[in-house]
């Protein structure tokens, strides 16, 4: 191994004196600086993860009984939330019976579109214990109150609809309310409760 320092010339070319490099950062200070930078990176990572978690996960806020919630330029109010083992057929046919161990939960909702928002959706979800969420199911019988059709809700005119959910019986007594799930941003989604 050759000694440290300026190397001999390459071929016939004389080696010039190399420029004196600036003194390197003392090692202890370098480690200290690394600690500071690592802390800054850690703060960024933590901040990002907290922000991303709030953005990607749906969080809910429970409203007072009977209070209205808003989503997509419309105001929603939960009128009733009832459970039943079977759904009556308004057309006089046989009722639809829930599967064994399950029950129907019917949410009757009134919505008023305040602005013509392109992203308006009238559907609601059902929030249960531990963050369990059920989407509305398709019913096989004719109902007295129509189900939600977003395109048929006119601006400014109160419209009633019902959403029917199939829920395991063991959770039916622990329901939180009808959720206006909104995944378009980091905000909380409102959970409607029927009037007391």
């Amino acid at each position, binding site marked *: 191994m*050759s000694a440290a*320092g300026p190397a001999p010339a*390459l071929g016939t070319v004389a080696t010039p004196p190399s420029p004196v490099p600036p003194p390197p950062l003392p090692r202890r200070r370098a480690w200290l600086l690394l600690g500071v930078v690592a802390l800054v*990176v850690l703060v960024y990572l933590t901040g*990002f*993860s907290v922000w991303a978690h709030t953005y*990607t996960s749906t969080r809910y806020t429970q409203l007072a009984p009977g209070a209205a919630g808003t989503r997509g330029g419309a105001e929603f109010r939960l009128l009733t939330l009832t459970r039943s083992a079977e759904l009556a057929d308004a057309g006089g046919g046989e009722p639809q019976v829930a*599967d064994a161990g399950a029950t129907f939960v019917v949410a009757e909702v009134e919505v008023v579109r305040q602005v013509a928002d392109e992203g308006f959706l009238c559907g609601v979800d059902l929030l249960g214990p531990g963050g*369990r*969420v059920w989407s509305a199911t398709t019913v096989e019988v004719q109902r007295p109150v129509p189900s939600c059709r977003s395109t048929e809700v006119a601006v400014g005119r109160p419209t009633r609809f019902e959403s029917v959910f199939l829920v395991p019986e063991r959770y039916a007594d622990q329901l939180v309310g009808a959720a206006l799930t909104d995944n378009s941003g980091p905000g909380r989604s409102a959970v409607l409760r029927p009037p007391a």
Partner: protein
Amino acid sequence: MAEPALPVPSRRPGGELGELLTDLRVLVVDTGRVWWRLLPQVLVLYLLGWLGSQLALRLAVWAGDASAWLALVLFALNFVALLAALVLILRLVGRELGIASLIPAEESAGDGRDESISRLLAVTLLPFLGLYAAFGQVTEAADTLVTEQTVRYGVLGSTETVLGVLNDAATRHPGRLLLLVVGVYVLRRVVDALHERTGRQALGLLVAFIESFFILLVILGGIRLLQQARVWLEDRALWGWAAGVRDAVAGALARLAVDLPAVLAAVASFLEDQVWPVAWEVVSQPVIWLAVAALIYGSQVLSLAELWRRGQTYAERIPGAGVFARHRDKIAARRPGPPPQGIRRVATEAREAFLGDLDDKYLPTFHSLRLILRAGLVFLGSFVLVYAVLDSVTNYAETALHQLLGGHTVDFWLVWGPWVDLAGVLPFEPLRLCLLAVAFRRCLELFQQRSAAAGPVLPVGVDRGAPSGRGAGVRVRRSRLVALLTALACVTVAAAGLRASESGPEHDLVRARLGVPATTQDGEVTVDDVRIATSLARDGSVTDTTPGLFVVVRVRAAATGPAEQVLTDSRLLADGDRVYTPYDTATARAAPGFVESVDHVFEVDPGGLSDLTLEVWRDEIVHGYQQRVQVHLGITAANAAAWRTAGAGQVVEPDRNGTTQVLP
């Protein structure tokens, strides 16, 4: 006080094997030593660069709310931040290794890159960006931006992603997009010219920034334009004539019992699967990285302008590997006395506009590459081997990290993505950069030793007085052959090691036995009730019949936790890497507290029934390392014949819509 530069080992006697061992020892030991010496400084630079690139990415995502074009502009900063850190780390390590002292004064760049960081960045960022683009890292980063935008706006959202806007521009307004690409190119050349005239370093950085934007624009938008052009071309009669000629040739060869399409497919497959990975990943990437890293240290080489001026070929100009081009010659060539007039001036400007880019970015890199390749086969083999070992360790670490974290849906990877990314690169990227610097220094040492052994550089055509005679020629040929074999052995070991390290699972495979629930993050998945038939029915009527066999499998998705359990995709794995995709789509979506059962149907070759394994998972438009459930269907080589016999002539009515039940 500065620590002394690392000692320089010389070649040891012992032939090519001795050289190989020396090179390996230098590369490994010196890389480790310089890494440890500069660890805090290198980590500080890398972390700052990484943080800068992350912030640029977040800014770009947020800016996308206002304009996708603004997002693209800000996204360009992502590369500038990261590459600036790489350049600075290479410079720092190069100083520690005393690389500057190994480059003769007249061969050094002489453009101020040693004195000024901004100058260094301005002249070296462009080839780095080109390299990033060539290795697909620009596309990869752009995918990240589009992914985050897609998640932010939703797949069906009305706000367009960068890719959506560029796609729209390419398909609806290709002329405008082409104009924009040309406009940005011209803008960069103008700012570049201003930078050269004024010498302002801020303009140099601006050039790098515009270049970054230009590359993004070309890669993301230009590709669409090319696809449009291809579609247009395929509609022309010329394309049909070409296809006719191809078919005629294929027909003629068919008479000679040569299946041209099959031969071409086999050749393409061989090149793609065997040759390309070795040539590109194992050999080219490390060598090109080394060549580009060499630019940091001022080994400015012959430029196109100088070639024109001298009217000589590169080989004529450079009799030995240790001779570098002179940057000041290039500068002088660009200052050709009195200002040109009229047509001459237009020609000069046009030449500068079109060839200047080649001159500035690609030619120095190309000649730097030639320089590296002249370091000798044994050195290149050892460098490729050490580089591959580092790459392999990185791959194994990534696999271990994935297995430690387990498979998750995209939400998890979006939240923890930056942590995983940093954990995957921070331990290894500084080591890789140290290796590049050490390897370049070793190159210079080899040139130095070779020059010293060969004596003074003589004019072209003058005999060096090298050993002559038949015996000497044989010895030289034998030595070259041994060197070639040594290098090939290194490349082979590197390729095998790298391949092995890349074979880690792409998914978190949750294996279970038939009829036994597999526990997943959202609940349980049970696969059972395997049926074999030759016909399928719906509502009691036969709808499908196959000359092979239908395999119908019941999959039960149980949402035992608070989340719904969703299984949207499946495939059937058979012996010999054969994979069957579903005959019908079958999706199970169980709400909390429910289990949903649905039948998955596959049409299979009766001869390949044994060892069928079903794989089911939740398909996501954007996904990371996620869980997949694998269940062996219980058909083995011993009982496959019995299954075949039992299935012959059978009709099965699969449950396509699914059955929902409450979990007990």
